[in-house]
């Protein structure tokens, strides 16, 4: 079982992650944890959902096991499977099972990307039964109080094929995330990218401009993550306009007019 300890230790968060609270989300999450209720984090990409989970895991002192969902993710990928080792069949826990056994936090990122038949395995875990059936082993795992399930998704405009079923969604305490307010966002960008406050403020201004282009055809504006990436490039010597071009403008759109307009914003601001 030493192997399992090592696998788990890698998921422990030792140092306090930097997280700037947006409201009372930390308190609500802590209380949900104590009540054994799962969390649903909604919000645009790159606005701090993952960082929030890292902070929460650190605060609660639990390991955090993150699974990025995709459309090839199968139930076995989550729950576990038999492998053959030295001619013998060995059961190998999947990340979800591992988290339940160890009382960790399991975070399914972008859960709508997973196929619907996969998402149903979390149902019995996500209501007050809090149990995980492992059919292949004929085992029914009961989650300890320390275990927590969290999922995230981006409710923005997207394919009709990818929407969270009501039967799934109605099990969670839902926290809605959005990009932080300008001052806070500037503080985050400044800290994370290690850049001057003025540059961080200008980057946030740029983001604000791109975020108001929804009606001009830009589905999502620049995320906090993109700002940090641009900032990091600048901090390491890339000229600011070039950094914005590669880290923000090109990442946002392929439409020539929108690209040109965002470029103009960049060259006005910097």
């Amino acid at each position, binding site marked *: 079982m030493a192997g399992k300890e090592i696998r788990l230790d890698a998921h422990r968060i030792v140092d306090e992650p930097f997280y700037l609270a947006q409201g009372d989300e930390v308190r609500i999450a802590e209380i949900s944890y104590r009540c054994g209720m799962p969390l649903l984090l909604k919000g645009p990409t790159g606005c701090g959902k993952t960082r929030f989970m890292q902070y929460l895991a650190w605060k609660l002192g639990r390991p955090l096991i993150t699974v990025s969902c995709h459309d090839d993710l199968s139930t076995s990928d989550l729950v576990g499977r*038999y492998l053959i080792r030295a001619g013998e069949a060995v059961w190998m826990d999947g990340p979800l099972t591992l988290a339940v056994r160890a009382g960790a936090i399991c975070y399914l990122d972008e859960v709508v990307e997973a196929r619907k038949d996969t998402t149903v395995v979390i149902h019995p875990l996500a209501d007050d039964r809090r149990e995980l059936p492992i059919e*292949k082993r004929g085992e029914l795992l009961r989650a300890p109080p320390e275990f927590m399930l969290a999922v995230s998704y981006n*409710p923005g405009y997207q*394919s009709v094929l990818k929407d969270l079923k009501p039967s799934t969604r109605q099990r969670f305490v839902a926290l809605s995330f959005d990009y932080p307010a300008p001052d806070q966002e500037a503080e985050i960008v400044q800290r994370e990218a290690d850049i001057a406050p003025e540059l961080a403020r200008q980057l946030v201004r740029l983001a604000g401009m791109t975020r*108001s282009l929804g009606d*001009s055809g830009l589905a999502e504006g620049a995320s906090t993550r993109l700002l940090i990436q641009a900032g990091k490039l600048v901090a390491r010597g890339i000229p600011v306009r070039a950094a914005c071009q590669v880290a923000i403008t090109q990442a946002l759109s392929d439409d020539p007019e929108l690209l040109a*307009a965002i470029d*103009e914003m960049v060259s006005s601001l*910097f």
Partner: protein
Amino acid sequence: MELDNLKERFFALVAPDLPNDWEVEEALEGLTGAAPDLVETVLAQVPVIWPVSNSLCYNYLGQAVGALSCFPPAELGTWVNETLDRYEKGGLQAAQRFMVHVEEEFVCRLRGIAGLRFDEVQGRLLPYVRGLAGRDLDLAAAATACTDGETIYLPREISLARGEADNFLLYKLTASFQWAFLELGSFAPASPLLPAAPDTELAWLPLARFFDSLAHPGLAADIYLQLESIRARAFLARELPGLMREALPLLPACPAWPAAGDRAGRLVSELQCYCLSGDIRDASLAAAHGRRLRHLVEPGTDAARSLELCRDLHAQWCRDAGDYHSPQPLFFQGTFRLDLVLAARNRRRRSLEQRFVDTLATVLVQTPAPGKGTGGDREQAAGEAPAPDVALVLDSGGKRHRDAEQTAFLRINNEQVALDEELEALAREVTDEFGFLPPRFISSAAGRAGRAAAIGAPGGPAGGGEVQAPVVYDEWDHRRNGFRKNWCIMTEKEIPVTRSTFIAATLARYRGQIVRLRNQFEMMRTTERFLRRQRDGDDIDLDALVESLADSRAGLPPSDRLFVRLARDGRDIAALFLVDMSNSTQGWVGTAIKEALVLICEAMEKVGDRYGIYGFSGMRRLRCETFHIKHLDEPYGDGVRQRIGSIAPQEYTRMAPAIRHMTARFAEVDARIRLLVILSDGKPEDYDDYKGEYAIEDTRHALLEARSAGIHPFCITIDHHAHEYMAHMYGAANSIFLDDVRKLPARMPEIYRVLTS
């Protein structure tokens, strides 16, 4: 620079020649008041000209400052070279003529080389400006830059700089300047100097009224424009440092100077100079007002300061304003068109009033009147129900403390009723615009509600008799939370076909785009997916095999799903497009919808999804109509194309029965994904009382019915502004809003692609 200094510099430049003293003095006269760096720019050319001709050089010194008001200093060298060319070919007179007619001889040609027209920059500047403003400003062309708060007008052409890139930069600067005026509140300073306007005053703007009250309104307005431009330039330098860094070298070195003796004109030009260079050159102006002028460029000043300074400068100079002529505005600063600002404000106020009164009246009609209260003692005209006694209470401190709970409610006949979201948002918009809630708005809504109540509930009188259709639909009445049974009669009709070149023209116009779309959509069709864990297939699923071996070693029954199969067509999508053919789509909207349909058809043919197209319109509940354009499995041929080309605006927008009709059509369709795409231009509404909340709720309910029948509805709305109700009616994630109808043809296939992949 003093004349003596100038002379000294000049003699140094032409040494060892020793020109005649008084000739030099006369030539340098025009430079005495000019800024030092401007003088340097001018003098720098002296060594080039002097050796060619002394007289030409004297002439040049007289003309150079004027010329520099027409083009940026960087062009001076080119201008001088051309002057010398003329001199060599045509002698002194030819060269003089060239120098005097700067605009026709020189700037004009620069323009010919590199002028940039508004329509070439509009596409790029519009999102830029909207990004800056964070709201839907529009752009339009005009002779001079200006703004009314809703549209920014830009010159039809800009050609002051040499290359396209630089001229674009000047366009951007001009647009940014107008944005700065809006951002800085130049048109509505919060100043005690302004007369207070009655709440609903439409005839005048306080700022314009203030100027009119002064001795020389034109001068005052010009001074104010200059002071606000100074503020705007400083603001832009702080907000958009990149822009200002790049654009400043392209600006003219100085403004055009007024005629001698126009002292007030001289003041305005000095202020323009300050705006251009950031320096106050005129010593007496600097001494008298330097502190206040410099204060304008600091962060945190407001338009009230400019107005105060404007009043004082005007008072000092208006006595000298006998010969005053407004100097040419700096092109990037444009002008203040308070008449346009007033017109735009009035448009906004009228539409706000109308929306507010409509909404409140609808709420009142639908709110069951509580106890009659004081209403009873009023005399009402015969046949009218008494108008309810209404007050709308909105907390005033709410804006300060965002978190504080906001109190807002309606009081009808002394009883409190909670405000619905739309009405509350509108009420706040009204108080933001007018400063408070004009009582007239409430009384006219109450009056209208009283009359409506007397006539009867919405739903309207049953009119029209030509009923022949077999299909009948219920209508949702949210007030009673139930259906009105068999309320609407739906006829499916054929479109009268008209001949036109529409299809051919559209296919030609969008040829490139259609090719690209067809490629894109073809790729969607051929998304090949590996289906894992199949009973049979093209290849062995190694993961599954290993797992099953392991399972069997562990004593479990091994799975027989061990193959991978390549699935070529996993799509099985049926889509219906429902397009608004109401009267309001007349014009651009209708054309764009038709073009979008042509494009989507061309694309759909490649992806191979099944699709149908129907139009809808009608008048009153007994004559709802859908128009057949293409049935689901009908091939896309000439007939379909002709019908698309013949789509023409009909009557009203009762959208819900059409949606129910589509849901009914879908019931016969077997497909994994059933998608209903609705294209419309705004609010559902019919000739009778089918409008407002009633119509929105019915439409919303029809969409919910569709959804619960397993259909994915998606709505594309074309309108100038997004409205609160849209997200509510359609569901935020199931709708998109386009403010620019020209974008529709390109966006629609794109939306379909995103929705289904």
